């Protein structure tokens, strides 16, 4: 061992000893999550958000509401920001509101919900109802759910944005549906966000929409980044490739999520979970090194080989 190598070894050992002696949460708190800029304003958004489809629709059960509060607490503790919901998700908005009020509305919250009705008038009423359920005065982002009645709702949302009642406007789709219409809206309307399905198995948006989002300066939220949990279930029990450590992936969830959020056009991914240990795994994807284009290609080939 050369003298320089020996000194490096001593320094690294000392650093490891210091880190090892500190509680894990202290390390998490110090290391900030990776963020990306929202093109329309330049504001930073942590790359891993939280979806609430199914997982937060727990009705009025106190036990389950309390467990979802714990999950939300863990999300913010690990530097989370964006929470996405919809009036379509049953009691999810009410459960999110319950969790947020118990956590005193963390400062990093980026509230995102949707309008889900074909009528413009009902849409306005629905937004008021969502505000009450979330217990917030101003949403960060309101999106037209699955493009349902988008022309009328976008009129409402842009007016709200003008008056300062809303920060960002977007539209959503999922499962690769209605991409032609999404493209048309992206070209015609001054959208801040689109939300689409993007994961290692569903890459339909790579063809046109992601490039267009970059060209038009539109932020992209990736829903179903774990394909509704199917991808992680499929990979359960299979060993992670050793080279995954080079991009700081400790588990399959991080492998899958880092692949999604490392695409230059993707601003944020919103995995949903009802388990705290899964939340910890998911949030780990917002830290450490990210794969570059070559590693992303290697990841795809590896997944296909399994």
């Amino acid at each position, binding site marked *: 061992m050369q003298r320089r190598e020996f000194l490096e070894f001593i320094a690294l050992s000392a650093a490891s000893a210091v880190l090892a002696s500190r509680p894990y949460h202290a390390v998490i708190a110090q290391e900030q999550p990776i963020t990306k800029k929202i093109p329309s304003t330049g504001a930073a958004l942590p790359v891993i958000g939280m979806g609430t489809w199914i*997982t937060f629709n*727990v*009705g009025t059960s106190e036990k389950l509401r309390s467990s979802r509060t714990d999950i939300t607490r863990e999300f913010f503790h690990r530097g989370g920001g964006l929470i996405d919901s919809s009036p379509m998700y049953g009691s999810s908005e009410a459960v999110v509101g319950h969790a947020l009020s118990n956590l005193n509305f963390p400062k990093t919250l980026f509230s995102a919900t949707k309008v889900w009705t074909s009528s413009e008038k009902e849409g306005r009423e629905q937004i008021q109802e969502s505000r009450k359920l979330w217990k917030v005065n101003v949403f960060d982002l309101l999106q037209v759910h699955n493009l349902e009645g988008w022309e009328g709702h976008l009129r409402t949302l842009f007016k709200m944005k003008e008056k300062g009642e809303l920060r960002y406007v977007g539209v959503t789709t999922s*499962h690769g549906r209605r991409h032609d219409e999404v493209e048309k809206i992206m070209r015609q309307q001054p959208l801040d966000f689109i939300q689409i399905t993007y994961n290692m198995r569903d890459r339909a948006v790579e063809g046109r929409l992601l490039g267009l989002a970059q060209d038009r300066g539109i932020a992209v939220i990736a829903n179903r980044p774990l394909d509704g949990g199917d991808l992680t279930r499929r990979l359960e029990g299979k060993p992670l490739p050793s080279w995954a450590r080079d991009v700081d992936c400790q588990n399959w969830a991080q492998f899958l999520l880092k692949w999604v959020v490392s695409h230059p056009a993707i601003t944020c991914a919103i995995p949903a979970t*009802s388990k705290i240990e899964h939340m910890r795994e998911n949030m780990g994807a917002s830290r450490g090194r990210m794969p570059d284009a070559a590693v992303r290609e290697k990841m795809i080939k590896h997944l296909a080989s399994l």
Partner: protein
Amino acid sequence: MEEWSTYRIRDFLLFSEEILLEVVDAYNHDLWPWQILWLGLAVLILVLILFPNRLRLRLVFGLLAAAWAWVGFVFHLQYFLPINWAARYSAGIFLAESLLFALSGTFLDKLQPDASGPRRNLGLIIFALSAFVPMEFVFGQNISHIMVFGWGPDRTALGTIGLLLTFRQGWWTMILMLPAVIWCVLALLMYYGLS
């Protein structure tokens, strides 16, 4: 049409199996011991059907109306609706069936019990299974998830189909059977989607 082909049954379900079981658990826990009453009424229905006369049949149909109304109002609207906005429609199916049974006195003459035969026996077996056998254990659930006839929607629908099979078949029995069959199909699709 092309877009609809991309949907799976699971895409229409807003809740997971875990949450559905939690709702059943809360329903059973909050309203205990009313289940015992419904178990007793199921025994009474069986006795009345085995030894029928006009008055006894009126009583059976009255109890069926009460069972469908209970499940519609209490299970669907109070417990299922918070996790599934579509429960207002399933409550509608149950309340419509309750109304049909309540009005059945006016067309009771058109419903004649079968004195014997394999269909009657099959109907009695189906009713007994739905009312008295804790099938939930077969699916790995525990005692807090057990439903009884007149209490849980699946048991009530299945038991009703069993009871209606003990009658001579005609338009009226088919009309009364329709909501029960619709619910059974919806429930099967729901369990398939959840699995």
